[in-house]
């Protein structure tokens, strides 16, 4: 087993990569990889004042996440939560999206790099392509679609997937008939309505200058065809998990009706085999754990059951250790078991054809040790994650070091930095990890870039300027209606000319026009001209959907000098032509109705203010452990003042008790350096022995009262109050703790390591009990860190005394990711692992001062008695007692385990639902040092976005209270999820804080006195639209 290369610590003695760059670095960043990590990093940077070049090698951004059906543990639709981020990325003024591009070389150093980019030809002019799809419809060449992993077909001219950004077609040069033999086909060129096809397109080489580089290179799913015994590639009904995602996906080859490949029948019995290409040092050559497969297999089993909506679907998962170590994962696992997913602790060797109906036969050993044989219709291989070969090649080309598993090498104290200064890494390219962890690292790497380039903030970005808006309040309505054909999407069903003519007859309408594509750049320009020429003061667009296009048209109004809220959209594609394809007459009728409603409503719309809130450029960080100090330094290093508040009389928090990280780095030296930097930093104002008493205000303008009497004005806050270890002083899991001097919880043993206690060398036998009081109904969550930490402690004990006998009593070993190598090393070193379950928990008692342990070994099927000199209990990481106080003060919520609750489990892992407040470290969930540091940097990055602005936009469509109707009942204050509505202390009537109001409308629905309304979605507008539906014409 190869050891990892020693971690090169910082260049300034404390693990922080301080800039060596000149005082005038470049203000732009190169982000390589357009998956979720790259997209998040690009958005964070572009929003905080840097220009971003986002490089993607395929024809559209979205990465692996866009291929997934649902995501765990919330079962959110993957494409639905991802799409808005992609659209934002595609439209961002300060993100230069370069698809079909690769980085060929990177010269220079941090602060001033020159990157050479090769942009491969698309053969379709993106400025002209209107994504009508006519080309793909007519293209005669059908090829396997790699987006569906070959399970479906696409054409040689294709859109990567329906929600692709940019929404532009591309020609596959390896498949195109014309490009292979010019003159032979050219069908797409003939049918393209906008003349976008360009067969003469050439590759381009581009040099760009950037200050920093972020690698978000992603991963490849393991290819199981080298594992002959699985039959993958030979037996059609053996599929990989990625293929199964496509089989489940509504945009996949079977449109979401789960079918198996051989006969397109719905499978009734599905098996998942875990660890295919992970934790396998034989044929697969991947010793590490891929971290995500246990959870995705459970998710797939749960979703498959939802798809069939029948209890008669049998779902079996064959696993070695069930690794549900993330937030809410254990609950998800418990729920899956309760819903009937069966779990078998067994690594199945062979998948055999059953000999009939293309079914498959598995032989496995049951819990009772007997061989069982079971037939399945479909077997899913839970394939692991590996470094993409091309990505590894690219990393080498850029001089970035890889670890023995081929992932980009990082360190415990610098989790997103590579060996090359100024080049960061995030996501699965550094170690297999799930989406929230990748998103966190993306923000953390954005922070590293913005720390380095802080002097050049806003130097290369562009700012949109709008003309002054015309006041139209006193004008009679002059409404313009634009009816879109959407190529043939609308026009093939609806008589658009008739709808346009009809629109002209409606009251208030002075102009109506039909366009082939209303969203194309020339039509948009023309629309702005028309508004000015015709003196329009309100606009209706009848087209696709406001979900994707409303912001574009609203911006057009602003460009033409009209308030953007004087706009309505009639959804005549998604809700009309697409759903009533067989009924053109009725669909045309409905389109007219929808246009009439929109026209009626837009007359009632008012111009709304573009609210902004000025930002106080100061951050408050609560808690001075590793997370808090890292976050504080990350912000302070950008020249922004930070107030750091700590309840205790010293810095360091939980980490003071830590001996070393799982990578083997000693913690105390690092911690001392970190504390020193915090104490000496001119931008950090430290308040020890202080707590928060009261918080007022909202994002941009918080006012916090501290217990030392001071009052802090700050724009954002980061909560990093940490957690503690559970001490089992009583109850079932007490195990002599507090009653015998040689019984410890994990960190008490670390303290003895730090003190270099000589007595440890004299121990003959040590027993560890893992999950001591964790993953039980009283404390259902998994504490994520204990397996790895306990195993590392055991290895250290072996270093101190190689003859010591060590036994680890465990339930599942959860050394996820590259931590698996410690588990492997522990077994090589003779450490004995004995599994127990909740029906047979270990028994511990004392006889004449000696500790006795008895546990039932499931393999021997008999009790084993141990006589250790020392007993170590891996107890749960538990939230701080004062977490409730902080939660109330900052109005931010906690989950049922009393860890802080993020705004979105997957895509906003460090944000609270309350704007301007972020979290980091153990108060979010138990996590090791490297993840804590990454999260602290991520929180700092998210806070920096706000702190970089002079003022931030606030929602314009906010609730309004009509004071004379309000009775002060307080229902609105109870239903508001954002604490934006309160009863006024003097008048006792409801009052809205417009800076906090998100315009969700919960208070409007809740108010029984009809006193609350939403601007532009009030009774006038809605009644006008409803009355319009009743009109005959």
């Amino acid at each position, binding site marked *: 087993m190869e050891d990892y290369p020693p971690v090169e610590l910082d260049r300034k003695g404390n693990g922080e990569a301080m800039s060596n760059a000149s005082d005038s670095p470049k203000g732009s960043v190169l982000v390589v990889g357009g998956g979720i990590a790259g997209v998040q990093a690009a958005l964070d940077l572009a929003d905080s004042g840097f220009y971003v070049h986002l490089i993607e090698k395929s024809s559209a951004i979205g990465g692996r996440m866009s291929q997934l059906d649902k995501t765990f543990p919330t079962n959110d639709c993957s494409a639905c939560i991802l799409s808005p981020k992609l659209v934002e990325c595609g439209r961002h003024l300060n993100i230069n999206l370069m698809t079909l591009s690769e980085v060929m070389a990177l010269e220079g150093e941090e602060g001033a790099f020159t990157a050479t980019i090769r942009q491969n030809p698309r053969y379709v002019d993106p400025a002209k392509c209107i994504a009508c799809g006519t080309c793909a419809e007519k293209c005669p060449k059908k090829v396997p679609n790699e987006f569906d992993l070959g399970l479906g077909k696409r054409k040689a001219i294709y859109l990567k997937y329906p929600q692709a950004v940019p929404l532009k077609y591309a020609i596959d040069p390896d498949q195109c008939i014309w490009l292979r033999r010019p003159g032979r086909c050219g069908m797409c060129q003939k049918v393209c309505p906008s003349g976008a096809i360009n067969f003469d397109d050439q590759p381009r080489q581009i040099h760009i200058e950037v200050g920093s580089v972020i690698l978000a290179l992603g991963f490849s799913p393991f290819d199981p065809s080298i594992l002959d015994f699985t039959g993958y590639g030979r037996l059609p009904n053996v599929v990989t998990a990625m293929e199964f995602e496509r089989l489940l996906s509504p945009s996949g080859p079977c449109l979401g009706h789960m079918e198996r490949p051989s006969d397109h029948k719905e499978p009734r019995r599905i098996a998942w085999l875990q660890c295919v290409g992970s934790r396998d040092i*034989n044929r697969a050559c991947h010793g590490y754990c891929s971290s995500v497969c246990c959870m995705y297999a459970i998710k797939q089993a749960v979703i498959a059951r939802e798809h069939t909506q029948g209890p008669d679907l049998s779902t079996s998962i064959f696993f070695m250790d069930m690794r549900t170590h993330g937030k809410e994962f254990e609950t998800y696992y418990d729920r899956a078991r309760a819903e009937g997913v069966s779990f078998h602790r067994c690594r199945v060797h062979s998948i055999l054809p059953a000999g009939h109906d293309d079914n498959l036969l598995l032989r496995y050993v049951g819990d009772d040790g007997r061989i069982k044989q079971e037939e399945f219709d479909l077997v899913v291989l839970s394939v692991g994650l590996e470094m993409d070969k091309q990505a590894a090649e690219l990393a080498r080309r850029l001089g970035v070091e890889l670890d023995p598993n081929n992932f980009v090498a990082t360190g415990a104290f610098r989790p997103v930095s590579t060996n090359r200064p100024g080049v960061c890494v995030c996501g699965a390219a550094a170690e297999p990890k799930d989406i929230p962890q990748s998103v966190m690292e993306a923000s953390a790497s954005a922070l590293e870039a913005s720390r380095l380039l802080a002097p050049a903030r806003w130097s290369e970005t562009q700012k949109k300027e709008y003309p002054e808006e015309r006041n139209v309040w006193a004008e009679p309505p002059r409404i313009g209606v634009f009816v879109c054909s959407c190529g043939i999407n609308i026009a093939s069903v609806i008589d658009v000319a008739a709808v346009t003519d009809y629109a002209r007859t409606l009251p208030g309408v002075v102009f109506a026009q039909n366009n082939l594509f209303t969203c194309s750049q020339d039509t948009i320009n023309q629309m702005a001209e028309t508004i000015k020429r015709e003196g329009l003061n309100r606009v209706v667009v009848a087209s696709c959907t406001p979900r994707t296009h409303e912001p574009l048209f609203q911006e057009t109004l602003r460009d033409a000098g009209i308030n953007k809220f004087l706009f309505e959209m009639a959804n005549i594609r998604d809700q009309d032509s697409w759903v009533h394809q067989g009924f053109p007459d009725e669909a045309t009728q409905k389109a007219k109705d929808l246009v009439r409603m929109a026209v009626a409503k837009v007359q009632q719309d008012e111009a709304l203010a573009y609210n902004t809130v000025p930002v106080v450029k100061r951050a408050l960080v609560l808690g001075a452990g590793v997370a808090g100090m890292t976050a504080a330094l990350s912000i302070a290093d950008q020249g922004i003042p930070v107030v750091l508040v700590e309840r205790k009389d010293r810095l360091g928090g939980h980490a003071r008790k830590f001996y070393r990280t799982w990578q083997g780095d000693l913690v105390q030296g690092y911690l001392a350096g970190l504390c020193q930097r915090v104490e000496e930093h001119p931008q950090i104002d430290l308040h020890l022995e202080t707590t928060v008493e009261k918080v007022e205000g909202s994002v941009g303008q918080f006012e916090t009262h501290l217990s030392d009497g001071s009052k802090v004005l700050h724009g954002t806050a980061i909560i990093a109050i940490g957690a503690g270890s559970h001490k089992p002083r009583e109850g079932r899991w007490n195990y002599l703790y507090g009653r015998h001097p040689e019984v410890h919880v994990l960190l008490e043993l670390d303290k003895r390591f730090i003190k270099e206690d000589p007595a440890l060398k004299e121990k003959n036998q040590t027993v560890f009990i893992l999950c001591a009081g964790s993953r039980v109904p009283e404390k259902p969550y998994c504490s994520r860190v204990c397996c790895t930490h306990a195993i590392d402690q055991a290895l250290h004990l072996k270093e101190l005394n190689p003859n010591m006998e060590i036994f680890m009593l465990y339930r599942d070993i959860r050394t996820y990711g590259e931590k698996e190598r410690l588990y492997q090393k522990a077994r090589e070193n003779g450490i004995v692992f004995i599994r127990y379950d909740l029906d047979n928990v270990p028994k511990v008692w004392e006889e004449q001062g000696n500790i006795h342990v008895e546990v039932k070994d499931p393999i021997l099927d008999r009790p084993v008695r141990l006589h250790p000199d020392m007993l170590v209990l891996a107890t749960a990481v538990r939230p701080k007692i004062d977490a409730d106080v902080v939660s109330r003060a900052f109005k931010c919520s906690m989950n049922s385990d009393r860890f802080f609750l993020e705004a979105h489990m997957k895509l906003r892992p460090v944000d609270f639902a309350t704007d301007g407040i972020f979290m980091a470290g153990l108060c979010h969930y138990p996590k090791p040092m490297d993840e804590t540091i990454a999260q602290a940097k991520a929180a700092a990055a998210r806070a920096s976005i706000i702190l970089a602005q002079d003022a931030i936009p606030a929602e314009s469509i906010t609730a309004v209270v009509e004071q004379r109707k309000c009775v002060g009942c307080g229902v609105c204050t109870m239903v508001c999820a954002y604490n934006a509505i309160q009863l006024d202390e003097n008048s006792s009537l409801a009052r809205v804080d417009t800076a906090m109001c998100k315009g969700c409308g919960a208070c409007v629905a809740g108010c029984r006195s009809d006193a609350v309304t939403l601007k532009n979605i009030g009774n006038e507008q809605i009644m006008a639209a409803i009355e319009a539906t009743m009109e005959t014409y």
Partner: protein
Amino acid sequence: MFYATLEGLRRFKISHNFEFISIITLYAQWIREGRLVVDPSWNTEGLKFTVQDPCKLVRQGIGDQVAEDLRFVIKKVVGAENFIDVWPNKSNNYCCGGGGGALQAGFVENRRKFGKIKFDQLASTGADVVITPCHNCHTQVLDICDHYGGKWKTTHLWNWIEKAMVKP
């Protein structure tokens, strides 16, 4: 030897400038190229053959590809119609039960009990000859055949190549 070397090269990523293949693959290649000429016409009695896939060579070693070569050579040597495959086979074939030192380490009863699975599988083919291209499998298959009263002959591969070889 074969597996230890192969696995050493693979697991420790030892760089080497030679190709590491089985003699079986070479037999197959030579037969395809016409350099080794074999003729199954010697098998006038229609002796039926089956095969054992050694774990270290196939499942843990090179994979199905060498198992295919093995079958190709046998069919060429004894006549395709005289070959009866076992089930499961190739990478999914059963272990003979004699590896890992089991043949040398005592516990004879346990070893034979394990070998019963192999015996039943081989016996169900009804073959007259079991070809085992591995000395370890050979000894175990020989022993379980004897112990459980099987009726086949256990041999290596080369014996039959020799029988079928023709001077070009």
